[in-house]
């Protein structure tokens, strides 16, 4: 299996195999309806989570709403 190094929310992670963004979020246990994702400084539309393939070197930000002023 080919392995990839990606950065998710500032942390480096090694992943193996072909993964879509949806797969990755599911593996993390994240409720996809409540988050937004930026990949290499570009917004990933929610409708494409199932088709966007994670690539070696990707930098991902997974965010949600929290309390704030």
């Amino acid at each position, binding site marked *: 299996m080919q392995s990839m190094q990606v950065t998710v929310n500032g942390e480096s992670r090694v992943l193996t195999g072909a993964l879509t963004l949806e797969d990755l979020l599911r593996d993390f246990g994240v409720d996809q309806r409540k*988050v937004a994702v930026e990949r290499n400084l570009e917004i990933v539309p929610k409708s494409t989570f199932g088709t966007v393939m994670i690539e070696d070197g990707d930098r991902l930000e*997974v965010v949600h709403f*929290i*309390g704030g*002023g």
Partner: protein
Amino acid sequence: MKSIEEGDFFEIAGRRFRSRLLVGTGKYKDFDETARAIEASGAEIVTVAVRRVNLSDPVQPMLTDFVDPKKYTYLPNTAGCYTADDAVRTLRLAREAGGWKLVKLEVLGDQKTLYPDVVETLKASEALIKDGFDVMVYTSDDPIIANALEEIGCCAIMPLAAPIGSGLGIQNPVNIRLIVEQSNVPVLVDAGVGTASDASIAMELGCDGVLMNTAIAAAKDPVAMARAMRLAVEAGRLAYMAGRMPRKLYADPSSPVGGLI
């Protein structure tokens, strides 16, 4: 004639709101207290922050489970952003997460005072408006900058009363009044309110609304303070609409002077 209360609303980016008190959702003890304070405040718009999901514990309770985004208008902010680029990135993510384009822009310039960096704020406003956002903008109490932000197309101007979280109240009422008089979009005091009278003063100066977080969340009893703020904003608004009496230097008796024994 309709009473002031019945017919009074304010409009932001084509949407009407009855409550002129906007509240933040940060700094509460827990989500239950957040929900109860917001309910007591009567606010229809609540500010929220955008932050990384904690991937080691992604199923912890979330704000959206306690403060229903269908009931309240979520206003995503850019708290903690120090450059226009970071603020724009944050709000693009917020738009994708929530699906709404009404946002609160704040670009900070200094960690000690949390004063806005107006140069970056102007840049970010331009970029966001070009990208289709409705921008409510946090800024200094400088009328010239406030006017520039309105010219760019911001849908609400939100000058600070005092530094964020300071609770010092309105430090420069003259500037707030100048901004109110010159603006053709809603003006809201954002940040620095400490207690109910501060909120009333903002409204008596003619502001369209007040946005606050710490004044409620850091009170000993946040739910009671939320109610106090709701009443203070209403009282200040009514006083402004009613038109206060002129100030005089000397006394003017309230009882008739004729017919004295």
